[in-house]
C-alpha cells in the first residue's frame, strides 16, 4: 500500500485530481474484503470470476441513475437547490447536482435524458442560435469538469429542438464527453436517426438502442449509462461481477453439453456469491441507502437496483469446445455449429442467472441482470463479452444475424461494434436502413464507427486517437484515456475491422 501510494504521489503523468482519486482507491483496497467462501475466494484470486477491481469495500453503488426529472420538480434540499424555472437555471441546477452523483468511476455515469429534461425549459421564441450557444457552454463544462468517457447522456426516442441542437453542438465541438445514446423506436423519425448518423461520422457518437426492447425489460424509466449499460432510472447497479468463460472452460473436462450441465452452475453460483457479498457490504455495512441524499430525498430507490452479472471470453470458450469436438478450425461467427454452441452457452448462463435469487435486487425482480461485459485493459487474449474476435468478424449481415438472437437476454446491455467504410458518409440513409433493420431483428444496441474516425471506441467508451500519443510522458486530461492506452495495446482495436469502445474503470495497474 505504501509503495502504491508513493508511486501515485510522485507520478508526473497524473494530475492532482487523478492522484486524489487513485489514493482513495488505495485506501479502499487496504480494507478487508467482504467474507467469501474458500471456493469463491480462490476463483476470484485466479480471476475466473472478477469484481472489475471495484475496490474492496463498496461505499457507493457502481452505477447510480438519479431521477433528474424528479429533482428538477422538487429541488434538492441537501444542495439547497430550488426547482429551476428557466433554461439557464436548469442547466446550472444539473451541473451542480452532477458534482454530487457518485459512481465507481467517481464521476456520474448518467446525466439524464437531456432532451426530455430540458425541452420544457426552452421558450418557443428562443432562436436556435441562442439555444445552441447555451448548450455549447453546458457541453464544454461537462467535458472539462467531468473528464471521463463513461459520463453518458440519453436522448430520444422523440424528436425535439433540444436533441437537434445537441447533434449540432456535438459535431462542432467533437468532444469525448459526454457519451451519448439515442433511443430508437419505430416512431422515431428517419430524419432524426440520419442526423444522429451524421454525428457518428464526426464524433463516433451516439449508440442506437432498441427502445421497445428496453421498455419491455425495465419499463419506460430506463437509461443507458457508462458505456452501454441499460438500467432503471431512480435505480442502478450495485456492482458488476463477471465470469470469464475462457477460464471456466479451461477448468472443465468435457464437451459443450457437459460444460453447460456440470460446469456452468458451479461458476455462476460462485459469481453470484461474489456479487451477493458485495451487495450486502454496500447496503448493510456501508449503509449507502440510509445516508446518501439521493436515497433520502427519493432520487434513487433501493428496490430499483440490482446486480449486473457479466460474461466475457465467449469466443475463446466456443473455440475450445469446438476443438474438443475435433474441429479446431470452426470459428464463432463463421461456423454454424460454433454459433449454435455460443448461443447454447449464453442461454444456459441466462437460465442459471434467472434462477439465483439475490438480496436487494428488486430492480431485476430479485435477480441479477445479464450483461455482455466488454472487457478492461488487463484482459489479454480474451475477447470482450459475447463478441466475435476483433478482426475476424464476418460481413455485416452475417455478423448481425449471429449476434442478434441473444441480445434480448442481456437486460443490462450488450454491444457488438460495426465498422463501416467512409463511402457511407455520402449516404447516411444507408446507415438508417441498417440501424432500423438491426433493431427490428432483435439487436438491443447498434454501435458503429468509421474507419477514418479520429474517435475510436475501445470497449464501450470513446477516446481521441490524438489523446493517446505521449500519454506515458505527459498524462491525459480524461481519466478513461489511461484505460484506453493500455486497452489499445492489449486489444489491437485500432487494427480491427470494427472500432468499438469498452467500459473500464480504475485499473489495478
Amino acid at each position: 500500500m505504501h509503495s502504491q501510494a508513493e508511486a501515485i504521489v510522485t507520478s508526473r503523468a497524473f494530475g492532482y485530481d487523478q492522484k486524489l482519486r487513485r489514493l482513495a482507491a488505495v485506501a479502499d483496497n487496504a480494507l478487508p474484503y467482504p467474507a467469501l467462501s474458500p471456493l469463491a475466494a480462490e476463483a476470484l484470486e485466479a480471476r475466473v470470476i472478477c469484481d472489475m477491481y471495484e475496490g474492496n469495500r463498496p461505499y457507493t453503488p457502481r452505477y447510480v441513475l438519479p431521477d433528474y426529472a424528479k429533482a428538477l420538480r422538487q429541488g434538492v434540499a441537501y444542495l439547497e437547490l430550488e426547482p429551476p424555472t428557466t433554461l439557464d437555471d436548469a442547466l446550472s441546477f444539473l451541473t451542480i447536482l452532477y458534482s454530487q452523483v457518485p459512481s465507481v468511476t467517481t464521476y456520474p455515469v448518467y446525466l439524464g435524458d437531456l432532451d426530455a429534461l430540458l425541452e420544457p425549459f426552452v421558450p418557443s421564441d428562443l432562436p436556435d442560435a441562442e439555444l445552441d450557444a447555451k448548450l455549447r457552454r453546458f457541453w464544454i463544462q461537462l467535458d472539462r469538469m467531468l473528464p471521463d468517457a463513461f459520463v453518458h447522456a440519453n436522448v430520444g426516442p422523440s424528436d425535439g429542438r433540444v436533441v437537434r441542437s445537441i447533434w449540432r453542438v456535438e459535431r462542432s465541438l467533437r468532444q469525448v464527453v459526454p457519451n451519448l445514446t439515442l433511443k430508437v423506436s419505430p416512431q422515431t423519425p428517419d430524419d432524426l436517426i440520419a442526423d444522429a448518423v451524421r454525428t457518428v461520422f464526426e464524433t463516433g457518437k451516439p449508440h442506437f438502442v432498441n427502445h421497445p426492447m428496453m421498455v419491455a425489460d425495465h419499463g419506460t424509466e430506463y437509461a443507458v449509462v457508462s458505456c452501454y449499460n441499460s438500467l432503471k432510472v431512480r435505480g442502478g447497479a450495485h456492482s458488476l461481477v463477471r465470469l470469464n468463460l475462457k477460464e471456466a472452460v479451461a477448468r472443465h473436462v468435457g464437451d459443450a453439453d457437459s460444460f453447460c450441465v456440470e460446469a456452468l452452475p458451479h461458476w455462476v453460483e460462485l459469481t453470484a456469491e461474489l456479487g451477493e457479498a458485495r451487495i450486502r457490504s454496500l447496503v448493510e455495512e456501508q449503509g449507502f441507502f440510509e445516508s446518501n441524499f439521493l436515497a433520502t430525498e427519493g432520487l434513487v430507490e433501493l428496490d430499483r437496483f440490482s446486480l449486473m452479472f457479466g460474461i466475457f471470453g465467449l469466443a475463446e470458450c466456443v473455440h475450445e469446445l469446438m476443438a474438443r469436438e475435433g474441429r479446431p478450425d470452426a470459428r464463432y461467427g463463421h461456423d454454424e455449429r460454433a454459433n449454435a454452441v455460443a448461443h447454447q452457452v449464453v442461454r444456459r448462463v441466462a437460465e442459471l442467472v434467472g434462477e439465483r435469487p439475490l438480496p436487494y435486487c428488486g430492480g431485476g425482480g430479485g435477480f441479477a441482470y445479464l450483461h455482455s461485459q466488454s472487457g478492461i485493459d488487463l484482459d489479454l487474449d480474451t475477447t470482450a463479452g459475447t463478441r466475435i474476435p476483433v478482426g475476424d468478424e464476418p460481413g455485416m449481415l452475417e455478423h448481425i444475424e449471429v449476434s442478434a438472437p441473444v441480445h434480448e437476454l442481456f437486460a443490462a446491455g450488450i454491444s457488438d461494434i460495426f465498422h463501416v467504410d467512409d463511402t457511407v458518409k455520402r449516404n447516411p440513409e444507408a446507415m438508417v436502413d441498417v440501424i432500423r433493420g438491426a433493431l427490428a431483428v432483435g439487436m438491443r444496441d447498434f454501435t458503429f464507427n468509421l474507419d477514418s474516425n479520429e474517435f475510436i471506441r475501445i470497449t464501450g467508451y470513446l477516446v481521441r486517437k490524438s489523446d493517446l500519443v505521449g500519454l506515458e510522458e505527459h498524462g491525459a486530461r480524461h481519466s478513461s484515456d489511461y484505460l484506453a492506452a493500455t486497452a489499445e495495446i492489449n486489444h489491437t482495436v485500432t487494427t480491427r475491422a470494427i472500432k468499438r469502445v469498452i467500459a473500464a474503470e480504475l485499473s489495478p495497474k
Partner: protein
Amino acid sequence: MTLATPVAGLVTDVIEFSAVDGPGNRFVVFTQGCNFNCVACHNPYTINPCIDCGLCVDTCPSGALGLDASGHITWDAATCSGSDVCIATCPYDSTPKARAMAVDALLGRIRRAAPFLSGVTVSGGEATQQAGFVRDLFAAVKAELPGLTCFVDSNGAAPVSTWDLLDPVMDAAMIDLKCLDDGIHRRLVQASNAEVLESIRLLAGRGKLHEVRLLLMPGQNDSDDLLARTGAWLASMDPRMRVKVIGFRHHGVRPSAVPLLEPSAEQREHYADVLRRESDFELVVV
C-alpha cells in the same frame, strides 16, 4: 407478362449491403457482359462472357478452377481464395466466376437482407443487356417485398423497347453519361452516345431518372465549355436534376493508349462550380 420460367441472369457477383448504388442501403446484383468498351472501365472483367479458353485454370493458385467433361470452366467458390489471379490472367476482359443465377436463388438472398434495405439495384456489366432477367427479378421483388425499390444502374445504351419492358417494375435508373460530345464519346467508349442521350431524355420525361453520373477525366471530357453545355442540356430536362460528378480513378482500370489522369479535389470542385452556374442541380461530388 409473367413467364412460366423466369429468366436466369449471368451474374458476376452480388453485394448484400451497398451504400453507393442508389438511395439508402441496397442489395446489388452485378450482371456479366457490357455493350460498351470504355477506356476508363473500372471493372473490365465484367465486359465479356467467358469463352472457356481455360488459360485461368492453369494460373489459379488455389486449384478452384477446372474444366468439366464438356469443356466448360468450373469454379468452386469454397476453395477460391479470392486472389483474382484468374481475372489478371484473362486476356478477354472476362472472369470464370460469373455464373447463371436463377431469380429464386437471388430472391432468397434478398429476402434475408430485406429488413436492412431500401431496395435492390442491378448494375454491371450492363444491366439492360439482360433486360428479361432484370424484369423478372424486379417483378419477383415487387410481388414479395413491395417495400423495396428497384433500380437499374446503366450506361444508357439501351433502346426504348428495353425501357418499356422494364417500366412496370423499375422505380428508377441511374445513367452514366461519358460525354455529351459524340466524337469524344466514340473515342472514349468506341460507340456513339445517341442512345444514351435518348435514354436520359426518355427516363427524365417519365420521372424515372434518379441521377446522371459524369465520369470526368482531365484533358479528355472535362473542358469548361463541354461541362457547361452538358449542364445546360441536363437542366433543360430537369433544372433540379441529381448529378453525380465522379473524378476518374486508376483503380481497376486497364492499361490504356489514351493517357488518363486523376482530377485533384480542386478540379472536382471546379467541375461542380461549372455545373452549378448552369442550374440549381442536386450535385454530388465523388
